[in-house]
């Protein structure tokens, strides 16, 4: 290995860093660290003049390692790797020291923050001594896309891709398209017909020559990696078909929760206690009636049934509050003289136009009552003959602190949304992780919300978290933008920072295989060693931590590099 010649660049980030860190002092002191040839500070390293400064120095001083001490690598690591490429230096001969998020933004003592900045930069320099040039792999992209799940999200994505004249394979488990959306009567907050929107979309799906539709079909296994996936499906009444595709959209949605375990609501016991999904079907059929066929005079809608409840689903199902308001409106139109009650825990009417719907509803003689979701859920009992109603809901009204008995002939339970029964299999097949709530995990919750940790696989719609129609559609279109971008480029670069196995040390225990979240490790029975697929591997390091004989290491994040960095940090005063 050639002797390291390191250039260090300390960024002010305007005043973001410079206000709390003496950047000039840091750059000056760093000059004394072994192998540092140039050390500078500049107002914005990420700006064009900043990057040009690095390029010029690489040429003038024959630098072969670059440390930029600035913000988080999540923001600008790719920027500076490109800078190195421009200067014809391998982009992995680069290291970032985060003196903004890890330092200037979180400290209030300038002297101490400056000391910490020096320590962080010194650690990065120590580490970069052991950096090696890494190779990036390039893979071709098959322009076809597989979409799993034909609800509103999947349909939107399919049409969008097909309209761009690219092939789509749509796999749907049931015998029809539309998912839960096909069972919805009106949208919220606009109260317009869902079927009038969805119907034409489904027709377009059927007619589009770019879309191959496979109903009543399930996926058993997917092999390959970004740009080059394959699966074999057995469509109903048809032969095995092999599909090849470059990207995957998972849009399997959620299902409604069965509220029987919440015995206080008597679902299954009282015939006129129904779920929101059952009521929606009633609305769609145009016939709102009790089980005995009569018209309900008193109707109660109970919110948060199984949502925001530690015993069932800790999360908020997000759409139900506004859907419940929609129900109150539709009920008021159907029954001008009925008594309508909304029993809620908190009224969560986020999204455009939803709070307005609440205001409108509250003027329609709808009684709103609040209950304590955590400690004191309402209970339903059968009414007495002289009560003049079917059921009585007993409730400690939270705001008035009074015990109330609400008469009801029909009770609508706003049930939670939860992962579908096959969600674990789909997660396993597509290599996407689930969180503890059986919701798919996005690559980055804020900055990369539709991608997943497996390149080429996107999750959209409510399978990733309960969502309204507009949110699901936005996600579907976001994923399509990414996919069409990848198809347009025609190739995908796979980062060089992957795990590698020393086959002389691997003893074939295969534990790494079971921990790999990307199914990137397989077993070579002949050589009795594990083998890493460099395209699937994301360099997460889980296998490294597990391997007892240390047979595995990560290019660009080796044990050697990590210990060099840590040693410098631990030795700093």
């Amino acid at each position, binding site marked *: 290995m050639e002797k390291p010649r390191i250039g260090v660049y300390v960024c002010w980030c305007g005043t973001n860093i410079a206000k709390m860190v003496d950047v000039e002092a840091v750059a000056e002191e760093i000059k004394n660290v072994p192998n540092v040839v140039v050390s500078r500070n500049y107002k914005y390293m990420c700006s064009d003049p900043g990057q040009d400064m690095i390029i010029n120095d690489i040429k003038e001083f024959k630098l072969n390692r670059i440390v930029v001490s600035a913000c988080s690598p999540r923001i600008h690591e790719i920027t500076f790797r490109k800078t190195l490429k421009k200067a014809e230096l391998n982009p992995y001969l680069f290291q970032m020291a985060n003196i903004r998020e890890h330092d200037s933004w979180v400290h209030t003592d300038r002297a101490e923050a400056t000391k910490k900045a020096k320590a962080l930069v010194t650690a990065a320099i120590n580490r970069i001594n052991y950096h090696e040039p890494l190779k990036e792999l390039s893979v071709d992209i098959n322009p076809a896309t597989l979409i799993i799940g034909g609800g509103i999200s999947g349909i939107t994505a399919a049409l969008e891709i097909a309209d761009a004249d690219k092939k789509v394979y749509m796999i749907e488990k049931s015998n029809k398209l539309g998912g839960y959306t096909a069972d919805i009567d009106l949208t919220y907050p606009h109260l317009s017909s869902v079927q009038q929107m969805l119907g034409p979309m489904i027709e377009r799906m059927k007619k589009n020559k770019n879309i191959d539709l496979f109903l009543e079909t399930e996926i058993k296994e997917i092999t390959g990696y970004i740009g080059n996936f394959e699966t074999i499906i057995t469509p109903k009444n048809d032969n095995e078909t092999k599909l090849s595709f470059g990207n995957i959209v998972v849009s399997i949605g959620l299902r409604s929760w069965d509220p029987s375990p919440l015995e206080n609501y008597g679902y299954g016991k009282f015939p006129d206690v129904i779920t929101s999904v059952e009521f929606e079907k009633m609305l769609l059929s145009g016939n709102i009636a009790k089980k005995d066929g009569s018209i309900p005079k008193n109707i109660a809608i109970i919110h948060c049934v199984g949502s925001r409840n530690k015993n069932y689903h800790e999360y908020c199902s997000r759409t139900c509050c506004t859907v419940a308001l929609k129900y109150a409106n539709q009920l008021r139109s159907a029954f001008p003289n009925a008594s309508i009650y909304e029993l809620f825990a908190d009224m969560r009417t986020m999204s455009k136009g939803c709070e307005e719907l609440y205001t409108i509803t509250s003027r329609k003689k709808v009684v709103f009552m609040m209950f304590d979701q955590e400690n004191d859920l309402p209970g339903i009992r059968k009414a007495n003959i002289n009560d003049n109603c079917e059921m009585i809901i007993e409730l400690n009204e939270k705001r008035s602190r009074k015990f109330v008995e609400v008469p009801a002939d029909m009770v609508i339970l706003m049930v939670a949304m939860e992962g579908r029964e096959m969600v674990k299999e789909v997660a396993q097949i597509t290599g996407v*992780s689930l969180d503890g709530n059986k919701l798919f995990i996005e690559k980055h919750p804020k900055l990369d919300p539709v991608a997943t940790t497996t390149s080429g696989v996107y999750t959209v719609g409510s399978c990733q978290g309960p969502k309204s129609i507009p949110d699901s559609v936005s996600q579907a279109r976001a994923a399509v933008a990414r996919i069409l971008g990848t198809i347009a480029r025609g190739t995908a670069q796979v980062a060089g920072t992957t795990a590698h196995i020393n086959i002389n040390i691997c003893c074939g*225990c295969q534990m*790494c295989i079971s921990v790999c979240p990307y199914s990137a490790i397989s077993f070579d029975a002949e050589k009795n060693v594990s083998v890493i697929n460099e395209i699937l591997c994301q360099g997460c390091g889980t296998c490294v931590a597990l391997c007892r004989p240390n047979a595995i290491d990560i290019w660009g994040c080796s044990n050697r590099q990590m210990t060099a960095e840590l040693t410098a940090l631990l030795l700093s005063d």
Partner: protein
Amino acid sequence: MDSIRKRARELLEKNTVKVVIGYGVGSDNTVRAIFVRRPEGVEELIFDETCVQNLAVYLLKNEIKQIGKLCIIANISALRTILQLASEHQIHEEELLCLSVTPNGELLEFTGFKDIENYISSCNRDLPDKESEMIKKLEKMSVDERWQFWMNHLSRCIKCYACRSACPMCYCTRCQVEYNQPQWITVEATLMGNFEWQITRTMHLAGRCVNCGECARACPEDIPINLLNYKTVLTVKEKYNISAGTNANIDSVMSSFESDDKENFIR
């Protein structure tokens, strides 16, 4: 004893196996491992309550593997080791044959892992009483007292790694103590270095130790290092309901997870 010799002789005569690993008379009233390759050699085999050593440690040695199909005289510890090694893909069913004798003298012959699993499920797998009591005593100590207990013991460790050699689960091609770039564990037998080594050994065996006690028997300084492992045996059983060496397809505690694990231990 006779039944074992008789069966071992048959196996060697018929060339069903190439070698029988068993117990023989050692020096100073001890038993030692012997490797019988000729039928007449079986007369040296013994098997009684003094045969506590876990012979499964020899199964993965290259010198032994090269000989061909093996027969091992296995006590319960060795049988459990074989199941655990099978779980870790280190041995395969067709490579060996196990002979054992029940407490009432009945000869057992295991041809497959399933047979071993069935037999093990009926055996007592509890920790020895003496060690169980010792662990209870340690658990009752304050942190300072416990620390002092281990420092007193570990100060005697000479880093001879006899514990590692005796352990049938320590089969790594290259042990973590042998790395120097980076140097994970101090080389010299100093107190903290000894501590680092024993903690590493314990963690590497967590969920894998079959409590055979070989490490402590091998220790020339009589350090009760098996207690460290036994504590993990109890923890793994309690938290994950996994007992190493009871099944040839057991999940490793350190490498298995469910996608709906709540991770509610992370605060």
